[in-house]
């Protein structure tokens, strides 16, 4: 199943709540201000990097670029995707929960 997170990890408790609710084998997609969670040298980046290896991590390309995040400075496990790929992700997974 797919978790979609859109809020800044700093402004909102749901970033942390979502991470607590993710099971191994699930997927997490960061969109909108949630991509700020990938900034280097932050506790949120650490908590994303330390998710179980079986959790698939995605981030939306337009939202990364729109917010000035350097694409070459992301954790290797993050897969950068487009909107059509987001549609595919929603099909691959039987359900999606938006936090």
């Amino acid at each position, binding site marked *: 199943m797919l978790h979609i997170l859109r809020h800044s990890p700093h402004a909102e408790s749901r970033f942390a709540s979502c991470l607590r609710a993710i*099971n191994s084998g699930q997927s997490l997609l960061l969109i909108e201000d949630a991509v700020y969670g990938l900034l280097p040298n932050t506790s949120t980046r650490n908590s994303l990097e330390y998710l179980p290896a079986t959790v698939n991590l995605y981030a939306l390309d337009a939202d990364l670029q729109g917010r000035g995040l350097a694409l070459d400075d992301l954790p290797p496990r993050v897969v950068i995707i487009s909107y059509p790929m987001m549609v595919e992700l929603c099909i691959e997974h039987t359900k999606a*929960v938006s936090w």
Partner: protein
Amino acid sequence: MKTLLVISRHAPARPEAREALDVILAAAAFGVPCGILFMDDGVFQLLKGQDAAQIGQKSLAANLQALPLYGVEDILVCQHSLGERGLQANQCLLDARVMNNSEIATLIEHYDQIVTL
């Protein structure tokens, strides 16, 4: 029918709290098997002794008490959220079942659809 879990995350004075209850009561009225999980500031909805009239609001209590009457099967509350807020289950309205993090992760796996509100 697909089962539906509503995760209610907002404090009771916020309009989002009432709208989350509207959604689950509508789902229950349509016969959808559903549950509600109070999480984050949503657990404040369950605090006893709220006098909503003091802040010019209608109490949420009637809507909360309607949940079992409408056949909402799972009424659940997040242990971590309670703990962060210094609350215990016996301070809660309704007989909400306390769920730890791994139980919540399993719960989310188990329901067909999840809407956070």
